[in-house]
């Protein structure tokens, strides 16, 4: 990750990045809740070049039984990258990296779920990276917390997450693939927006304390924006809330039906 030499000019004369963004600019994010019918809750996120699907099952009986905790639910997250998600085909199956990411995401999410309400159960989260372009763990945790809320699981708050880092000596927010590969450092964090508690933080590369603090501030303010998108996605699933009279509802239906027929 950190500091592979390259010919690519990561920051140009105007201070813009390889994809034309300003250093403090995020990639476009699109979140959709409840995309899968069979899962108890689900979410899909498109974040720049990342495409990530999250599904939640449970709370359900934990298997094998020795994993059950009589005091609380266990949160089991499985982060997986599709073999076609990256340029060079990735060997399928869990590897060191995905096991680590699964663990940190499980722990981050467990900290917001009211696990003590569901003793002896497990809450299973599946994060599938369909297309990767740096920052998939952040996209994964962002989608997973929307999926958890969609599954009706009681939790303290949603968790937005974002990664920033240092590229060619400049501090940049939400790095893309090139910046991640040839940058100097990266710092993914996930927070509880209201209390600003940090529930996930990892770092790769070298940063001074000043740089670290600056990146942290950048990340937190970016997380607040992502948080709004998460809430919007959840509310969108249940709106527009029909407030019409029954007659109006029926007319609306008729129109929709006609459109269907025309198609």
């Amino acid at each position: 990750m950190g500091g592979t030499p390259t010919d690519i000019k990561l920051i140009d004369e105007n201070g813009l990045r390889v994809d034309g963004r300003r250093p403090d600019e995020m990639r476009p994010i699109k979140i959709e809740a409840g995309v899968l019918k069979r899962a108890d809750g689900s979410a899909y996120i498109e974040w720049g070049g990342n495409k990530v699907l999250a599904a939640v099952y449970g709370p359900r009986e934990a298997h094998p039984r020795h994993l059950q905790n009589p005091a609380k639910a266990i949160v089991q997250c499985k982060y997986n990258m599709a073999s076609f998600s990256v340029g060079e085909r990735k060997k399928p199956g869990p590897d060191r990296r995905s096991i680590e990411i699964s663990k940190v995401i499980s722990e981050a999410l467990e900290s917001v779920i009211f696990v003590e309400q569901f003793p002896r159960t497990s809450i299973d989260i599946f994060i599938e990276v369909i297309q990767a372009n740096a920052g998939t763990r952040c996209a994964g945790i962002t989608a997973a917390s929307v999926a958890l809320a969609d599954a009706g699981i009681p939790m303290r708050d949603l968790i937005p997450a974002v990664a920033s880092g240092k590229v060619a000596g400049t501090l940049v927010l939400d790095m893309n693939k090139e910046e991640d590969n040839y940058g100097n450092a990266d710092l993914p964090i996930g927070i509880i927006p209201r209390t600003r508690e940090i529930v996930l933080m990892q770092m790769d590369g070298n940063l001074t304390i000043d740089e670290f603090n600056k990146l942290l501030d950048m990340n937190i303010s970016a997380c607040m924006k992502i948080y709004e998108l998460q809430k919007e996605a959840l509310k969108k699933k249940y709106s527009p809330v029909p407030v019409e009279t029954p007659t109006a509802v029926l007319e609306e239906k008729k129109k929709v039906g006609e459109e269907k027929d025309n198609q």
Partner: protein
Amino acid sequence: MNEIDEKKTDKGGNSSGERQDERREERREYRRDERKDRYGGHMRGGYKGERRERVEKRESEGRDEIRIDIKDEEIADTETVREIVVPGDLLDGEELRAGVGTYKDDDGKIYASQLGIKNTRANYVNVIPLAGRYMPRAGDSVIGKVVDIGPSNWLIDINAPYPAPLHVSETPWKVEFGDTGRYLGLGDMVLIRVVNVDETKHVQVSMSGPGLRKLVGGHIIEISHSKVPRVIGKGGSMISLIKKYTKCRMFVGQNGRIWIDGEPEEIYLASRAIEKIENEAHVIGLTDAMDKYLSEEVKKIRGKVVTEEVEEKESEEDSENLVEEHEEESDESGREEREE
């Protein structure tokens, strides 16, 4: 609600009758409340049977007229507007207490813990969940499926995160040790009641009690348990409507399983009706819409021979406005049939 929970842990097994009464009362209130929330702010208390009149009035005379119509108590009740909240949303009102689907944080403020609809009742602020799994509660009548057989008990799947063991002593039969398989086999459906749920969520169920039995024949359909109050309707209005039209025997379990028995066409109609309710649970005036839907569908099944009850219902509602709606309704249902 907290009071009841405390009682449960304090007293343990005794005074179950009393508790069940309370629970029933609570559930009734809950149901009523949910309706209030649903209609609140938009219908202005229009759920009390005069819905149609109110709607017509609104169309002809405008909103201000309707406001005058409301009784004081109804204003208080309908102040809550249907507002969707997500986990972490601040629910205002520090003088209020945290109800279901909420939590009080260290800062003393109340936040939503679940995705749902905000609702304020009495001193409590609640979130009525839009999703989530069924959690068994003492007093619930549920439909379960036998998934395992032991020498002196059966393991029942009640569509919850926890399987429920049904002991032979909790059945109406006298079962010899190891003879359990002769009474209930794998896959049998049973109508049981949740007797108790302890802190570690161990579920006790019983099949001895009025109406509790093994379900023989009929069909089982599954809906989301959060839609159960809508399928039952206010004071059982919706379910009795379906029963009346389809002549089916039905039972709705609190866990979202519904048992229907009757003529094949009528079972099919009843299950379509329930599916419609589940999909349109948010629609205002659903009971009336279902009334029309069912009367049309029943006519199709039985040809021109319509029962007296149905005819009566029709003449009651006869007005130009309604006839139009009937036509729309039949168009739609016709399309539905083709699709299926």
